C-alpha cells in the first residue's frame, strides 16, 4: 500500500510443525562409508586432491576449491579413500564425489591448528580454507560473502535465525544449546569487518532462544530482534527489509543495501573454526515427518547416506511418499535414500502420503491469493498466463526474474496449481532468450 512508509513485504502463514524443537542434538553418527560431493555449493566444483588408497583424517582436504567462488571439501571421517565416483544430484547435474571407508575412529587431522586471524583479509583467507558455505540452505561460499567489495558501505550484520521453514529446528537447537558460540561469532565478524550494527533476527515462535540470546548479548551491543512467525521471514531480502527497512535493489546483493546476512549455524561455525581450526565436516540436521519413527535432531558427518540418517531416527514408520532434503517449502525431493548429506542440508524429512500437498493444476480462478502472498510483489497469476502463451517479453516485464522460489504462491493456491514450478520455468525461458541474443 502506498501510504505505508516502511516498505511492506507480503508474507503467508504456513503451519510451523516444530515437533522436534525440544529434541536435544544427538551425537555424531558413525557411517561405514561417506560419499563426499565435490560440488556442495554455488560456484565451481572443487577438484579432487586424494586418490584411491590414501589415508585421511577427519578434516583432511579431499577437494580443493576450483576458483574464488567455490569451496574446499574435507573428509568427515578418518579412514581410507576407496575411490572417486560420479553421481546425479537432485538438480539433475552429474557431480564428482570421493568415497571414504571409515575406520570408525574419527581421528582428527593432527596438523589442524587454529588459524591466525587479525583483520578482514586474514578472516576471508581462513574461512576460505574451512570450506564453509551458507548453512541456511543456498550454500553460497561464505568467504565470498565476507569479502565486502571495495566502496560498499556495509554497516549492518544480520544473523538469520528466523528458521521459517516448517518442521526444521536445527538452528533453534544451535541457539539453545550453543548460544555463546553465536554471540562469539557475531562479535568476531563484526570486529574484524568493522561493521557498526549487529542484529540477531529470530522468529517469535522461538521465545526460549530469544530470551537466552538477549541475556548473553547484554553489554555487547547486539540487538536480538523478534520477528513475526510468517513465511518466508528468513528469505535474505525479506529479512533485510524487515530488520532495516531497506530494500535490496533488483539484481543486486545485500551489500548494496549495506547488509551482510549470515545464517545462525554459519556464525556459530565461524566461532568454532577460529577456536579449533576444524573445517566443516559435520552438520546438525532435523529428521522428522510422518514416515519417520522418531523425530530428532542429529549431528551427522557430511557424506552420510540419507538411509543411515533415517535409521538413526528409528527407521521408516510407514509409507514415505516424499523424501526431502531441506524444508517442505523450498527443500529438494530425493529419488533415493542412498544420496549423501551435503554441507547446506539442515533437515531430512520423510513425509507420509497425507502430509504431502497434492497438486492438480485445476483451472486458475483468478482469486489473487498468489499475488497477495508473493514477498517479491510479483503477479504469479499473470506470469503463468504469459508462460502458457510463451510470451517471454511479458514474463520479463512482469519481473519473473525477481522470483526467489519461496513456494508461497503454490502453497496458497486453491486450484492447487504448480505456480512456483511455472515461475522457475519462466526464469529458464527468459535466460534462454537472453543467451540467444
Amino acid at each position: 500500500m502506498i501510504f505505508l512508509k516502511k516498505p511492506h513485504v507480503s508474507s503467508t502463514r504456513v503451519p510451523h510443525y516444530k515437533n522436534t524443537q525440544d529434541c536435544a542434538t544427538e551425537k555424531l553418527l558413525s557411517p561405514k562409508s561417506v560419499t563426499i560431493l565435490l560440488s556442495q555449493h554455488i560456484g565451481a566444483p572443487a577438484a579432487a586432491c586424494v586418490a584411491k588408497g590414501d589415508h585421511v583424517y577427519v578434516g583432511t582436504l579431499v577437494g580443493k576449491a576450483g576458483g574464488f567462488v567455490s569451496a574446499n571439501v574435507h573428509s568427515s571421517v578418518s579412514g581410507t579413500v576407496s575411490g572417486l565416483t560420479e553421481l546425479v544430484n537432485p538438480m539433475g547435474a552429474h557431480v564428482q564425489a570421493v568415497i571414504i571407508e571409515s575406520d570408525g575412529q574419527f581421528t582428527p587431522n593432527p596438523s589442524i591448528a587454529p588459524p591466525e586471524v587479525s583483520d578482514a583479509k586474514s578472516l576471508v583467507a581462513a574461512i576460505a580454507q574451512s570450506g564453509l558455505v551458507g548453512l541456511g540452505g543456498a550454500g553460497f561460499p561464505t568467504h565470498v560473502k565476507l569479502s565486502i567489495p571495495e566502496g560498499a558501505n556495509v554497516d549492518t550484520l544480520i544473523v538469520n535465525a528466523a528458521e521459517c521453514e516448517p518442521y526444521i529446528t536445527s538452528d533453534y537447537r544451535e541457539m539453545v544449546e550453543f548460544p555463546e558460540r553465536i554471540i562469539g561469532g557475531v562479535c568476531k565478524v563484526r570486529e574484524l569487518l568493522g561493521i557498526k550494527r549487529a542484529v540477531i533476527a529470530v522468529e517469535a515462535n522461538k521465545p526460549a532462544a530469544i530470551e537466552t540470546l538477549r541475556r548473553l548479548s547484554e553489554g555487547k551491543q547486539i540487538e536480538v530482534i523478534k520477528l513475526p512467525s510468517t513465511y518466508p521471514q528468513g528469505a535474505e531480502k525479506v529479512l533485510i527489509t524487515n530488520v532495516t527497512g531497506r530494500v535490496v535493489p533488483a539484481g543486486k546483493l545485500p551489500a548494496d543495501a549495506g547488509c551482510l546476512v549470515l545464517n545462525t549455524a554459519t556464525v556459530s561455525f565461524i566461532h568454532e573454526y577460529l577456536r579449533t581450526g576444524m573445517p566443516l565436516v559435520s552438520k546438525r540436521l532435523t529428521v522428522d515427518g510422518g514416515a519417520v519413527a522418531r523425530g530428532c535432531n542429529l549431528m551427522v558427518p557430511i557424506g552420510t547416506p540419507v538411509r543411515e540418517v533415517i535409521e538413526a531416527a528409528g527407521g521408516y514408520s510407514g509409507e514415505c511418499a516424499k523424501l526431502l532434503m531441506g524444508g517442505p517449502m523450498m527443500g529438494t525431493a530425493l529419488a533415493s535414500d542412498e544420496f549423501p548429506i551435503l554441507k547446506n542440508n539442515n533437515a531430512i524429512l520423510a513425509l507420509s502420503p497425507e502430509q504431502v500437498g497434492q497438486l492438480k493444476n485445476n483451472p486458475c480462478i483468478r482469486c489473487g491469493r498468489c499475488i497477495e502472498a508473493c514477498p517479491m510483489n510479483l503477479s504469479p497469476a499473470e506470469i503463468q498466463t504469459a508462460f502458457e502463451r510463451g510470451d517471454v517479453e511479458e514474463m520479463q516485464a512482469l519481473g519473473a526474474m525477481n522470483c526467489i522460489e519461496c513456494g508461497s504462491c503454490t502453497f496458497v493456491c486453491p486450484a492447487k496449481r504448480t505456480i512456483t514450478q511455472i515461475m522457475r520455468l519462466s526464469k529458464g525461458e527468459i535466460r534462454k532468450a537472453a543467451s540467444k541474443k
Partner: protein
Amino acid sequence: MNNLTVTSSPHITSPRTTTGIMLDVIIAMVPAMIASFLFFGARALLLIAVCVACCVLSEAAYCLLAKKPVPVGDLSAVVTGVMLAFNLPATLPVWQAVIGSIVTIVVVKQLFGGIGCNFVNPALAGRVIMAVSFTGTMVNYAYPAQAADALSSATPLSVITAGNGAKLPLWDLFAGNHGGVLGETSCLALLIGGLYLILRGVIKPIIPIAYIGSTFIFLALFGCEAPLASILSGGLFLGAFFMATDYTTTPYTNTGKLIFGLGCGLITAVIRTFANSTEGVSYAILLMNLIVPYINGWTRRKPYGTEAAK
C-alpha cells in the same frame, strides 16, 4: 524405497481448495434462500432448484460435447445457478429459468473457457440477457403477503423514484419484507452471508464496503432524498457481497478492488438518479467487470527492489 515422488517444491499446500471456496459461497447464500422462501413461498425454492439443476447439467453436457474434463465437482455451476435464481422474480415461468440457466453457463461461462476465464459475471450477464428476452415476466415482481401498504404493489426503488422514499419503513427494507427478485430483498440475510464469507477469508470486505458506501455518498451528492432507503433497496447488498466479489471478474489487488467498488457505486448512483431505469446494480457491476484488465494493469505492484532507490 522405490515409491518416492519427486516434484518441484513446495511439498505442502494450504487446505483451501476451489471446491471449498464454492461450498463456502453456497453456505453463505443459505440465509438469503431461507428469506426468499419466507417472503415468496415454495416457488422461490422451486426456481432455485431448477436453476441449479440446469446450470450443472448444461455445464456437464457442454463439456462432454466439447470433450473437455467435466468440472462439475468444483461446485461453481451450483453457485452460478443459485445466483441466477436470486436475480429472478418468483413468478417467472420455469421454462424461462431453464433457458436462462443454459445461456448463462454455455454462452457466458463455457464459451469463454469455463471457470476462471469468463470476463463478466455469468449470473449477472444471464440476468441481463433474460431481462431483454423476457421483458414482461422478468419485471413481474412478487410481493410478500405481509408487506407494508406502501410496498404491497411497488418495489422500494420505484417508490423512491416516484419521490416518496422518505416514507419507506427502513426495518422492512432491511429485513426484506417487500417486492423484488428472489435473493435481493433481505439485506439482513445477505449481510449474514457476507460476514460469513469475510470471516472464512473467502472475500475481503473492501469491495462491499467501498461499493455500498460510495453508492450512499454519490446518491446523497446527486440529491437523492432517501439515500439510506435506496441502498437498502434493490440488488445492492446482493451485488456488493456476492456478485462484485466474484474472483474472476474483479481486480487482484486491494487498490484495484477499491477502485472497482467505487466505480460500481458511482455507476449505480448515476443510473438510480438520472437514468430511465430504477435499478443499476447489474449494469454497474457488468460495466466495471469489463475494465478489470485495465484496473489490474494500473494497480499492479512493482516487483521488490525495482522501486527507485531512496
